[in-house]
Every structure is written in C-alpha cells, then in structure tokens.
C-alpha cells in the first residue's frame, strides 16, 4: 500500500494545501481562499488536491495542519475559556501575583479565580514546602461549575513536575475528567512569570483548539479521508490531536516555522537563512540542522510576556507593497504598505502609489505590470532606493546570523522576486520552485520531537556522563511520542552555567527529533 500525506496551512488570506508521497515528492500543491469558519476552506483545499491528483482516498495515511486560529483568539481576546489560575510554591512567589503586567483587558477575563498554594521545588529538585493537598481539594470544590479550564504552575516544575501532576489528579478527582488541565512543565522553560503566562493563555484557548481540530477532521471525513491527523508546533515538529487539545499554545507560531522548514526541504538545505518576502514585511529566520533557531528572549504574545518555544524571527518593514516616499533627492522606505491592494495601488498596475515593486520594475530587476508607468523616473534615485532596500535585507540577515561566515540564503514568498541574485553575507542564493506554498510543505514534512530541560551539577569528571544521560532521555521521549526509533537524532543541545552560584549548577537542554514512524 502507498502512503501519502496531506499538508495544510491556514493563513489569514489563503489556505494552502500540498500532497506528498511516501518519499516526500510533491504530487500536487494549491492555494484556496481562507474561509471564516476555516473548516470550509480546508474542505475545498483537500477536495481539489484529491481531484487533481487521482489518488485513492484510502492511501492518505497522514494529514497535518498548521493554523493560527489559536493566536488570533488570544490577540482578539475572543472565545476564551473560563480559567482558574493555580500557582504552587508558597511561601515563595507571593511578591509578584500571577498575571501582573498582563494587559488590563486580558487580565479582567483571566484573573477571576487565582490562587497561590503551598508546594513547589528548589533549583536542585528539593521540596520548598509540602504540597497543600487539602487546600487544593477545597479550591477544586469551590471551582465546580465556575470554570472549565485550569492552569497549574509550580515553582521549578521544569526540574521536578511532581506537584503539578499531583495537583492535576486532585482537580480531576473533584471536578471530573472533562475539566481541562494545563501544566506549565509541558509548556515552557525556567522563568516562572513567563511560563505561567503561557500556561494561562494555553488554558484559555482549549475550546478554540477543539473547534479547529474537530473542523479539520470533519473536512477530511467529508472528503472520505480517514487519515491520522497531526498538528504543527512552533518548533517544526508534530503533535497528536489529543496533545493539541491539551497544549494548543504550542501551535501559535507554527506559521513562520513551517515556512522555514518548507524552504529547507525544497532546497535540501539544513543550515540556511530563510528570507520570506511578503507584501508588508520580510521575515528572516535561521535553520539549524533543519529546525528553526529558537528565540532566546521572552516573546510577547497579545501583549503578554511568555517564554515558550518560538522561532527567532527578525521581521523588517519591507515587502512588495511597501510605500516609497520621495522628497527631492531624499526618500523614505515604508514602514507602511499597500498590503494586499498591491494589484490596484502600485504604479505599474495602474495605481497611484509608488511601491517597492515599482522600484524593482523600474530598474528592470523584475518584469511585472506595465513598466512604462515608471519609465519617467530618475534612474539614479531609483538605484539609490533599491540599494537601500537590499541593504535593509542584508543588515537583517547579518543580525540574525550566529557567526560571521557566509551562509546559504533561501528566498521564498511572493515578494522574493524583488531581491537580487547577489546578497552580501550569502554564500549562495536559492529560489526554490513551489516556494509559494513553503508553509504547507513545511507542515506536511514535520517530524516528531522530544525535549528535556534540567539543572545538573556538572564537574569536569562527570560532564560527559551527564550529557549522555540527558541525550538518552530526550531520545526516549521522542520515540515514545511516535518517532521511528531508527531515525531519531539529537538536534539541539545547550548547557548554560548559572551565574553567581558555586557548585557548577548548569541548565541542560536537549532536543531530539525523528521521522514519523510509518508503521
């Protein structure tokens, strides 16, 4: 039997779809408009893929979805769950209450049932104080019928998650198995406030995730497809439906991730810089061993400081629709853009606004619309503007690099035609075919991953032994999550010494990934 897979990416404007065979060859790809209910757009995309490719429905074994539905819910503060916030760690933690610093409109929705309970751990895994189970039971009784989702964050749970797991059991015992429970140890790394915020946001989007996931399955079912479904995470790997319904926050940045991974796949480059030129912005990211480099600083989402896994993206205000203003000999590039109205507003398309696209056309970099419309301009000035545009991209590329050596640069996105063949800092420049649907391809080729983060006391003598142990734990977790045991490998590893503490306490993070076990 042949096994095919479908990858879908639901964006703000378009729903992209691709169909890949077992060897990951692109059989067919397309774009359809995104619909308000999402489900209908996905249905159309799948329907057209099947129609165009003449493949037996039964041979579709996997279907992967990348979507920003959960992100939109947070940004728009819509359809959020009724949440209770539980922090475990008292007496530690009392000096800054949960949700401090979160924007008021969101805080008023999420901060109605907030508790701090005794428990939690030290950095070395010792207990701060015993978990107050009696109080947790009382809280659970009190919350019955008031909330449908609970966010639990225990101090140093990335090192020891016992108190979070036990608290979950207590809430389920009292409130029943229907209650949604989010544990911070599954969501983020060390940094209590940021991890807690991310866990609370996660608890708030459980229902949105369920609607989206059910819609995806229904869209497939209505096409007669009974594939196993997966959802894309921020880090370019997959989650099962069951896990997605528990931890939807891990999907919020899968869009740019999928675009990076798709570009990597299309060019067979595992270490490269990806430049995705859209209508309004250019997003630049870095692939390291086939995965997006993760951001090392706290990432804001809907105005909330979080620290969960997000790709490090450097976005600059330069795209095909970027507005150029000329004043005598000087000029200003953006940052505003005509956006999706490029086809009406740009000079070469008969409009009245000078855009980045017009500059490129005027210099003959690309043939689009009617070049006559920009033939009257001062070529020297256009050359200066174009020079600056390229420089902006080059500076952004340089900022995101980790070393001074030149790296391969892959151009994707509709606006990438504006960029030249030679880019400073690039060892070579690639423009893959199918670059327009890099997102959907990225979603279809995603792998399974596992990650561990712990603080170890490392000395010169036991360093190798501890790192090996950490690696083994990450590999085991990945295989348990559904990866092919013959195809897993360590993809990322870092050990960061904690400053100002003797005893060489070191934070070790290891990540493994592998292809989906085809079974």
């Amino acid at each position, binding site marked *: 039997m042949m096994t095919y897979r479908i990858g879908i990416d639901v964006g703000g404007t378009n729903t992209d779809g691709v169909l890949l065979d077992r060897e990951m060859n692109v059989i067919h790809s397309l774009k359809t408009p995104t619909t308000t209910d999402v489900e209908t757009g996905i249905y159309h995309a799948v329907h057209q893929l099947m129609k165009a490719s003449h493949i037996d429905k039964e041979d579709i074994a996997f279907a992967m979805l990348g979507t920003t539905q959960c992100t939109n819910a947070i940004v728009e503060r819509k359809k959020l769950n009724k949440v209770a916030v539980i922090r475990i760690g008292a007496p530690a933690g009392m000096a800054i209450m949960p949700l401090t610093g979160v924007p008021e409109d969101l805080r008023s929705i999420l901060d109605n049932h907030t508790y701090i309970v005794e428990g939690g751990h*030290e950095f070395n895994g010792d207990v*701060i104080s015993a978990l107050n189970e009696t109080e947790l039971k009382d809280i659970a009784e009190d919350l019955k019928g008031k909330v449908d989702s609970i966010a639990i964050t225990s101090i*140093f749970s990335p090192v020891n998650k016992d108190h979070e797991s036990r608290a979950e059991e207590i809430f389920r015992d009292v409130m029943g198995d229907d209650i949604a429970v989010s544990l911070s140890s599954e969501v983020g790394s060390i940094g209590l406030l940021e991890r807690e915020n991310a866990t609370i946001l996660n608890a708030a989007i459980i229902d949105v995730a369920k609607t989206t996931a059910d819609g995806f399955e229904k869209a497939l079912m209505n096409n007669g497809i009974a594939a196993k479904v997966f959802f894309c995470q921020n880090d370019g790997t997959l989650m099962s439906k069951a896990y997605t319904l528990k931890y939807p926050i891990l999907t919020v940045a899968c869009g740019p991730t999928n675009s990076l991974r798709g570009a990597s796949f299309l060019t067979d480059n595992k270490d490269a810089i990806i430049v995705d030129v859209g209508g309004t912005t250019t997003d630049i990211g870095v692939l390291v061993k086939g995965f997006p480099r993760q951001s090392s600083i706290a990432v804001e989402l809907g105005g909330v400081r979080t620290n969960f896994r997000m790709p490090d993206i450097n976005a600059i205000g330069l795209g095909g629709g970027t507005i150029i203003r000329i004043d005598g000999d000087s000029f200003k590039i953006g940052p505003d853009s005509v956006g999706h109205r490029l086809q009406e507003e740009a000079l070469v398309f008969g409009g009245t606004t000078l855009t980045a696209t017009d500059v490129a056309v005027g210099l003959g970099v690309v043939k689009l619309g009617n070049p006559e419309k920009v033939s009257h301009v001062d070529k020297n000035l256009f050359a200066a503007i174009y020079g600056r545009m390229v420089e902006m991209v080059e500076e952004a590329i340089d*900022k995101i690099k*980790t070393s*001074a050596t030149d790296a391969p640069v892959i151009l994707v996105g509709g606006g990438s035609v504006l960029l030249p063949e030679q880019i400073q800092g690039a060892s070579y420049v690639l423009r893959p075919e199918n670059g327009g649907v890099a997102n959907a391809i990225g979603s279809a080729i995603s792998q399974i991953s596992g990650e561990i983060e712990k603080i170890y006391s490392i000395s010169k003598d036991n360093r190798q032994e501890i790192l090996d142990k950490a690696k083994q734990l990450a590999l085991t977790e990945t295989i348990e999550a559904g990866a092919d045991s013959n195809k897993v490998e360590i993809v990322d590893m870092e050990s960061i010494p904690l400053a100002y503490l003797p005893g060489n306490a070191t934070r070790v993070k290891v990540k493994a990934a592998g292809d989906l076990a085809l079974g």
Partner: protein
Amino acid sequence: MRLIGKEEVENIAIGAALLGTGGGGDPYIGKMMAIQAIEKYGPIRLLDITELADDDVVVPSAMMGAPTVMVEKIPSGEEALVSFKALEQVLNKEIKATMPIEAGGVNSLLPLALAARMGLPVVDGDGMGRAFPELQMVTFYLNGVSTTPMVLSDEKGNSMVINTVNGEWAEKIARSATMVMGGSVMNAIYPMTGRQVKDASIYNTLTLEEKIGRTIKEAKAGKRNPVDDVLQMLGGFKLFTGKITDIERQTDGGFVRGTAIIEGLDKNKGEHCYLAFQNENLLAKTDTDVLCMTPDLITVLDTETGLPITTEGLRYGARGTVIGIPADEKWRTQKGIDIAGPRYFGYDYDFTPVETLQAKGGNK
C-alpha cells in the same frame, strides 16, 4: 524627601540595567516586586542622604545568589522583612531607613519593594554606583564599615545571623549558605549610622537611575539618538561602536568569565574591540589601546534603542555602542583600586581613568 511611584520605578529599572555594567541580574523581577508593593502599600519615601540624622540606623538590603534562580523562585516578599527584624534584635535598635547596596541590576529595585512593604524610607544612594560581583566590593567597606552583623533570609522563613572577621569571610560563608537555602536569598548587611552613610555612600544613585530611564524614554519619544543623550547626561564617553561577532564564556566558581569581540562600524570600521567580563564588564580594549577599565563603568547599549545589553544578552549580530563612565572618586583611591581594580580581576594593567585613556587618543 520625595515620593516614588510606579512611573519612577519603571525609569529606575532602565537606569539600573545601565549602571549594572552588563551584570547585576535583570531588574525585571525587582521592578515587578516594587510595583506590586507600591500598589498594595502606597508610594515610597525617598530620602536625600543629607536628611539623615547622624545617629539614625540605616541598613542596606540586597539579594544574594543566582538571578536565574530568582526569576523562577520569586521571593515571598517577606524575606527582607525577616532579615530586618532579626538584625534589629541583634543591634537592639530600630532601623530608620534602607538603601541599595548596589546601583546596578535587580538590587537597585529590591530595597524599594522592601521599603514599600515596611513603610521605611529609602536613602538616595548606594555602595557601588554600579554593579560588582562580591560583597566586599562596596564603598562602605572602603570606609571601614563592617559587613557584619549581617542576616540572610529565605522565603521559607529561615534566617541566619553572620558575624565574620572581614568582608571576604562574609562573602565566602554567605555564598555557601545561599546554596543551602535554595540559591537565592535576601540579606540585611552593612548596618550603618547616618554619619557612616554620609561618609561612605555614593550619593543620589536612585535619582540618577531615574534620570537615565527618563532620558532614554524622552530621546525615543523625541526621535533623538538615546545613546548621545545619555552620554551627555552622564558625562560618559562613546568608546566603540560596532557589532558583536564572537562571544566566548566559561564558568569558574560561580562566575561566568568571558570575552566579547566587537567588530567596528561607522567611525570604528576596521577595528576590533575586546570586552572582558566576569558577570560584569570589566575591561574594554582594541588591538592597540585600552579604552576603559574597572572600576570605571563599561556598558554596552543597543545602538538603536539605547537600552543596555547584559553580558548574558550579548549575541552575534547585536549592534552595540560601548560606553565608559568615570567611577565615583571613592573607587579611584588606592584602596578602591586594590579591591576592584583591573589587577584584582586578573588583568595586568595599572588603573588609568577613562578620561585619561580617551584623551590619549582612544576617543575618536
């Protein structure tokens, strides 16, 4: 005396990061603690040093341990209170005010949270005018103020009174105890009389930090370059402008030592700057010249936003302007240089003030 509210705290936090000279820990947690305490207990009274009576008892307060632990195990807010109560018992006197021991990083903000919690005033000064890694590296110590009796307290309610023969022993014992108590504790340390504070402190550091924060914010709002505005305000020097091209770090007895290499841009094109740090930035030099050395202050500002970059935040590609600020005269005495000068940290240079180095030709 004047009152400090939430907006002043926001500005102080920016100034604290700048005077932190790359270390001192992210002021964020301290800032949030101070803001919560102000919301709950009202604004803080800030006292000018000259307002102290000579026999007032003043006790500085600081966190000790790993800032990385503190961002996860946030304090209860009662630790410093426990330290103060225990120290009052030992001294058998009422404490009249608190103050920061260190103007840089998280420790600038924590005494503000304590002050709001206890209703104590905060003295507008500190014992470093910057951040330094060790307990004895304070002007109080230069003036012969005893580090101890000091008290360490954790969030569990444990406290420990320490009496030692000198500051180095206090540092050793306290750091070991900090590990056992969970990696991050609050202390009450260097108890002083009002007279001693007047003689031994660096004056007006909280007000200075507030001004730094305000200057950076106002420059941004007025679309001016914040780096230039800040340097003018501080009387500092632009040492080097460039981008970080390499960072090398190793850990050694709880200290992260390393060097950042900065490739010159603009006026410094073609040159390299080497920035040596041990938690804090301690020495900046090019291939030919030394630009600035400890105890003078060396901070890297984001060239675009003017916001300070910590040594942990230094990464390839970041555009930074290295600035040098003359340290307080107290640090430039022989004793100050012995305790926190280049040789103490293992750099084989005679201390030369940043303004002298710049006049020699480092300043371009």
